[in-house]
């Protein structure tokens, strides 16, 4: 078991290098990188009043920047070296926790990312609590009241949430409740006058802004978690040990809560690690829809602006979290289910 987890941790490194080298190479091969963008900006700034917009075309003569300056820029961004060398330069810096400098904000990538973290963590933790807080009780009730009116009605809702992706739910909520009915604000994390509000006012303001995004986030995991809980509880209720407990004369209610429930939580534990990942990385889509200044929106914006140091920085953090989240899931499973032995069959998912 220990050797299994050691192996899993060791596997993080090759996976991490594989993912980053792939993306790093891609970002180097393309036109439209930071140098081209700077050249264009410089050309536009220099072209005011004159007509030398041809600067970028031949790169010489009309260009506002001299060859020397371009070389300097290239050296600055590490574009003067072959891809593989500058990759290892970059990787070396990552190991010393230096993610480079954002080409858009001209501040360290880590600072940019750090400033977005609190918002993403807020949404992540709230989603986590809501998901487990709603889905587990709902799953239990649905299992006990299988095939009753309550089960059927809530199944319809669950099925809806299962078929419709969360971003569509988000967009629908935004259009209906924020734009048309004007019950909730359209976007953002807090209001403009946030600093002037009282403590309670601040809390209400955050809640007001968070309500719709949280519905969308919840829609993403609601159906799967609820059904997982319901189905695994029903499997357990049909198992021999529950039959034995009831045959002994134990109350049904007690058989459910004392015996079946704990075992039914095991499948939920497998997805716990991935939820942790979501805590930090959020969702590109939902953050973009509600214009929440979190991690996902940062990733999206830096892609659009071709701010590759930030793109790579986010990739580093999200893939590391993803890898750790998967291992965390395994640890959770081993924790709630003492029977689980990893690594013996070699066929774990």
């Amino acid at each position, binding site marked *: 078991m220990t050797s299994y987890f050691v192996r899993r941790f060791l596997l993080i490194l090759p996976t991490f290098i594989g993912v980053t080298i792939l993306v790093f190479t891609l970002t180097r091969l393309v036109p439209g990188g930071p140098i081209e963008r700077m050249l264009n900006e410089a050309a536009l700034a220099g072209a005011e009043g004159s007509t030398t917009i041809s600067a970028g075309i031949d790169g010489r003569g009309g260009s506002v920047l001299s060859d020397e300056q371009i070389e300097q820029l290239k050296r600055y961004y590490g574009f003067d070296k072959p891809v593989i060398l500058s990759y290892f330069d970059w990787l070396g810096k990552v190991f010393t926790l230096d993610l480079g400098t954002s080409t858009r904000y001209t501040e360290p990538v880590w600072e940019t990312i750090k400033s977005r973290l609190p918002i993403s963590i807020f949404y992540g933790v709230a989603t986590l609590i809501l998901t487990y807080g709603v889905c587990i009780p709902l799953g239990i009730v649905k299992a006990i009241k299988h095939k009753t009116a309550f089960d059927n009605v809530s199944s319809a809702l669950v099925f*809806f949430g299962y078929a419709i992706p969360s971003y569509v739910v988000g967009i629908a909520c935004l259009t209906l409740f924020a734009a048309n009915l004007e019950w909730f604000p359209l976007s953002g994390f807090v209001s403009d006058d946030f600093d002037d509000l009282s403590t309670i006012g601040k809390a209400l303001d955050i809640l007001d802004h968070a309500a719709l995004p949280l519905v969308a986030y919840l829609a993403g995991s609601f159906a799967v978690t609820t059904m997982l809980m319901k189905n695994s509880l029903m499997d357990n209720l*049909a198992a021999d040990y529950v039959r034995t407990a009831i045959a002994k004369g134990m109350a049904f209610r007690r058989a459910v809560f004392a015996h079946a429930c704990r075992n039914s939580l095991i499948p939920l534990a497998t997805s716990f690690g991935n939820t942790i990942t979501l805590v930090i990385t959020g969702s590109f889509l939902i953050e973009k829809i509600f214009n929440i200044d979190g991690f996902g929106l940062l990733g999206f914006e830096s892609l*659009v602006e071709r701010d590759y140091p930030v793109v790579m920085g986010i990739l580093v953090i999200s893939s590391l979290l993803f890898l750790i989240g998967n291992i965390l899931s395994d640890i959770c499973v081993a924790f709630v289910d003492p029977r689980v032995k990893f690594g013996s069959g070699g066929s774990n998912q």
Partner: protein
Amino acid sequence: MSVLNLNPQTIKQLKRFRSIKRGYWSAILLAVLLALCLVAELLVNSRALMVSYEGELYFPTYTAMNPGSTFGLEYAYETNYRELREKFEGEDEGNWVLMPPVPYNAFENDLRIGSYPPAAPSFEDQHYLGTDTTGRDIVARLVYGFRIAIAFSGLLLTFNYVAGIIIGCAMGYFGGAFDLLFQRVIEIWSNIPFLYVIMIVASVVVPSFLTLVIVMAALGWMQLTWNMRTSTYKEKGREYVSAAQALGAGNVRIIGSHILPNTIAVIVTFVPFSIASGITFLTALDYLGFGLPPPTPSWGELLSQGTNQLQAPWIVTSVVVAMVIVLLMVTYVGEAIREAFDPKQFTYYE
């Protein structure tokens, strides 16, 4: 049934599928929708279905373009059939134009004097769901966008299935070093942040239809591969495989004609859900602006227009309703197929 020579097991599964009413009707409705989509040019098009001009009949839908001069107009570019219809109606000389139910295509900007797009739904203008921010008809964008999304999902599905079935079967059947190698590959591959990497790739190379399919298939083949590996592995231990081996059947024959038919449940069950996730994914990418390049009609692009133009609620409403209907139906079909192939009965006590 006897013509198709189905085995009793398949007939039973088909019967079970038909007994699940909402799944069965969704399947029929989806099939009708798909068929209509194939001939979308006859239903949603700026070209006329039929033109009768001076005693001669023209069917311009699938032919080369007819210049305006064909119908006695002054210009040599493609005939504007909507104007032609109005002209003929005004002249009353026995010439007529039969337009499709929605007389717009997905690319033309129907700009009108005195109003700015987006225009609200209007039966008078035959923009039944209104127009988008550049004056294109939303029905047309929806229909052609749906056709592209379905084709996209279908192609993606084919790529994923070819890779998944071949690699998965080989992993389960041969086992050993090959299995171990691909287990590691899958482990590494599934740790890539899927959406983000696709976005990065799409921001780097402006994707065409085919490159987008290939990129997505390259990152999405693992799920089915893994399931195929597991079920092939299970089947391999059964007696009929040993029997076939004893009779001297080759590996390809054993996998192809013995194991594969027995794993069909896994393959079929996944189809509807793969289609749904293909549509969802393409729409999400288009919404973020990293999908198919404009002016390709797409649901995601409409969604992004709609969320930027919230004062024009008909844009968002149309797309959301269309997506909900299609995805619900696909999922109903998926549930019914799963139920038919793998009926699960619970017994419990009270």
